[in-house]
C-alpha cells in the first residue's frame, strides 16, 4: 500500500442534473508533492475534492487513495480534509474541537492527548485552548480548521481554499504551517483562488474549468506551453497617441487605447529601442514603460478567457 501513489484519479465524471461538475478528470500525484488546483467558481474544484474524501459518488471513473477506494476506512485514516468553511463546533473550545476530530479518526487515550497538545502548539493556540472557538479571530479559526484536518497525521491532505478571508499576517502563518507539513512528507492537494499562493507553494498546478483539467504542470511549463517566451510591454504616453502612430503601432501587433499601448515581445533588447524610436520620431513623449514576464494570471486568462475571480 505504501508504494501506491497518494492519489490517482481516472476519468472521473459527475453531473448534478444537467450541469456537468466533473467531465473526465484524470490526475495523479506523487508522495510529498503539493498540487495546486486553480479554477474559477463552479469549475468543479470542490466536487473533485469531495470525491476524493468519498462525499461525492462519481457517475463514472475511479478514485484511489494510496491504492484504495476513498470510502475504505484505511483511506479515510490516511486522508485529512480541510474544508473551505470553518467546519468546527463553535461552542466547543479549540482543545475540545481537536479532541472530537481526533476521536472521529480513531484516536483515543494518551495518543489523542498528545496529538491535541501538539496541534495546539503548532497552531499557536495553546494559550487559548479552553476558550470558545466562536470567540477566536478569523485567522485563529482558520489555523484551527487546518489542525482539525491534520490531528490524526494524514499522509494526504486536501485543503479547500484554506486562506479565504484571512489577513496577510495570518495567511503568512498558514503558509508556514503548509511548508512544515510538506517537510513532514505530507502530500497536499491545494485548492485556491490566489495565484500568488499557487505560485509560491505548489510544485505543480492543475487548471480546471467546466469540470475539465485544461492544463497541468509546473508554473514555468504552463507559461511556456501557453504563452511561449513572450513578455508584455506596456507604454504610457503623456498625451493620447495620434492616429498615424496608432495605425503604425497596430500594424506591428500592438493594441492602443488612448494613451496606453500594449505589446507582446519575444526579443525585448531589440524590439524596445525600435519602438522608442517610433514614438520619438512622431514627437510623442513617454511617461512610463514596463516590461513584465508572463504570470500564471495571464496563463489562466489565456486558457479560460476569464479572470480567476470572475
Amino acid at each position, binding site marked *: 500500500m505504501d508504494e501506491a501513489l497518494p492519489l490517482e484519479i481516472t476519468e472521473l465524471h459527475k453531473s448534478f442534473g444537467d450541469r456537468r461538475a466533473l467531465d473526465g478528470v484524470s490526475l495523479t500525484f506523487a508522495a510529498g508533492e503539493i498540487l495546486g488546483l486553480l479554477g474559477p467558481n463552479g469549475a468543479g474544484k470542490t466536487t473533485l475534492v469531495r470525491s476524493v*474524501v468519498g*462525499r461525492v459518488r462519481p457517475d463514472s471513473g475511479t478514485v484511489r487513495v494510496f491504492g484504495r477506494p476513498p470510502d475504505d476506512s484505511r483511506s*479515510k485514516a490516511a486522508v485529512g480534509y480541510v474544508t473551505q468553511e470553518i467546519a468546527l463546533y463553535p461552542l466547543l473550545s479549540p482543545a475540545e474541537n481537536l479532541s472530537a476530530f481526533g476521536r472521529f*479518526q480513531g484516536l483515543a487515550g494518551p495518543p489523542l492527548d498528545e496529538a491535541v497538545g501538539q496541534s495546539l502548539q503548532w497552531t499557536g493556540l495553546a494559550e487559548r485552548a479552553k476558550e470558545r472557538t466562536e470567540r477566536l479571530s478569523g485567522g485563529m479559526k482558520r489555523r484551527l480548521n487546518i489542525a482539525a*484536518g491534520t490531528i490524526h497525521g494524514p499522509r494526504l491532505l486536501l485543503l479547500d481554499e484554506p486562506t479565504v478571508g484571512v489577513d496577510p499576517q495570518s495567511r503568512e502563518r498558514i503558509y508556514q504551517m503548509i511548508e512544515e507539513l510538506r517537510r513532514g512528507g505530507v502530500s497536499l492537494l491545494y485548492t485556491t483562488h490566489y495565484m500568488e499562493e499557487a505560485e509560491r507553494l505548489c510544485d505543480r498546478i492543475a487548471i480546471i474549468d467546466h469540470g475539465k483539467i485544461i492544463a497541468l504542470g509546473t508554473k514555468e511549463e504552463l507559461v511556456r506551453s501557453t504563452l511561449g517566451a513572450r513578455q508584455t510591454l506596456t507604454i504610457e504616453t503623456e498625451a493620447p497617441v495620434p492616429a498615424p502612430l496608432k495605425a503604425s503601432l497596430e500594424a506591428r501587433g500592438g493594441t492602443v487605447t488612448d494613451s496606453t499601448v500594449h505589446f507582446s515581445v519575444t526579443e525585448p533588447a531589440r524590439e524596445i529601442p525600435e519602438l522608442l524610436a517610433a514614438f520619438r520620431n512622431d514627437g510623442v513623449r513617454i511617461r512610463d514603460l514596463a516590461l513584465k514576464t508572463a504570470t500564471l494570471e495571464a496563463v489562466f486568462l489565456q486558457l479560460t478567457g476569464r479572470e480567476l475571480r470572475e
Partner: protein
Amino acid sequence: MIFAVARTHFAKLKRDRAAFVLAFVVPVVFFSVFASIFRGSSSRATTRQISVVVVDEDRSANSARFVDALKREKGLRVFDTRSVPGGRTAPVADATAAEAMVRSGDAPLALIVPRGFGSSPIRFGPSNRGPTLTVLADTSDPIAPQVFYGLLQKVAMTSMPDVMAETGIEQMDRWGGGLTAEQKATLQKNVDRLRQETRRTGPAAGGTGSDSDGGLVAVNVRDVLGEQKKNPTVAVFAAGLGVMFLLFSAAGAGGALIEEVESGTLDRVLSTRVTMTQLLLGKLLYLATVAVAQLTVMFLWGELFFGLELHSHVPGFLVMAVVTALAASAFGLVLAALSRTRMQLVALSNLLILVMSALGGSMFPRYLLSESVQKIGLVTLNAWAIDGFMKVFWRDEPLVALLPHRLARRWEVV
C-alpha cells in the same frame, strides 16, 4: 426612514418562503385542523359512544329487559363478551372478570346487575331498600361515569314503565292508607296494558341523559383505579405534556443537524472514519439521553409537588421514558432530514407537533373527541406514549403490558 426600514423587511419576507409559510399558512392550516376536530366532536352523527361491559347476575325477565334497553341506547355500546386468545370471544362471567377488564383498559365502565334487581328495580326516594346497580369506572375519563349514570336512570324509566307504575301503586298502597280491591284490579289492568304496549314498541330510544341525585334505580359508582391514587390525573398530564415538549426539543435539537450541514461540519465529520449510521446513532443516543433526563426531571417535580407516585413505578417509568425518548428523538431527526433550512424545520415541526399533540391527547384528553378523530389520534406518538404511561401509573400494569398489544397477548399465552 421608518418606511424604508419597514419596506426592507417586507422585501425580506417576500423572499423568505419559509417565514412566509410560518406567518400565514401554518396558522390557517392549524386552525383548520382544530376546527375539523371540534366540529366533528359537536356533531350528533359522530358523538362518541360510551362502551360498557354488562354482567347480568340476576338473569330475570326484568333485568333482561333492562339490559336489552341499554343495548338499544344510542349513546352506549353495551357488550357482555370479551375476546380471548385465538381470536374467539367468551362471555364475561362475573363482576371480577368485568373489573379486570376495566382495570386493563379494555372497557372504561362495567355495569353489574345484582341478584334480585328484577323483582324490585325501581325505588322511590332514598328510604326504599332494594338491590343496587354497581358501576365500576375507570375515572381517567371522568365524564363517562356521569353520563352513564344519567342514561341508566333514563333507560329505567323508558324500558320499565309498568314496573315503575307497579312499584308506585305498592308504595301508595303502603303509605296511602290502603287501596280497595276494585281500585287494585283497575290499576293492575292498566299496568298490564302499559306492559303490553312497552313490549310492542320497545323503550323510547334517545340521546344522552343527564345526571341527577336520587335516581329511579339505585346506582353505586365505584372508581376501581383511582380510589387509592393520591392525585389520579397528574400522571396523564405529565405524560401528555412531557411527550409534547420532548417532540419540540427533539425537533429543535434536530436543527443542529441542519446547522452542521450549512457549516460544512457534517461533510467534514463524514469524511473521517465516522459512517452515516454511526453519526445518526450517536445523535440519537445524545437526543434520547437528554429526553430521558427531561422526563425524569418533570416526573420528579410531579412527585415532589403534585402527588405523582413515581417512586412506586420506577421500572415502568424507565421503560416508557426510554422508548418515548427514542421515538421522539428519531422523530426530530426525521424532521431535520426532511427540512433543508432551519426555518423550514421550525414551520414543519410546529405544524406537525401541534397537530399530533392535539390529536394524540397531549393538549386535552382524547375522550373529548369524536370516535373517528380518536381513531386518527391513535397513529400519533403522543397517544402511544400517553397510553403507555397510563398503563404504568394509572392501571399499575406489569412491564409486559407495555409490549405492543399482540406481543403482550402472546406473552400471556406462553
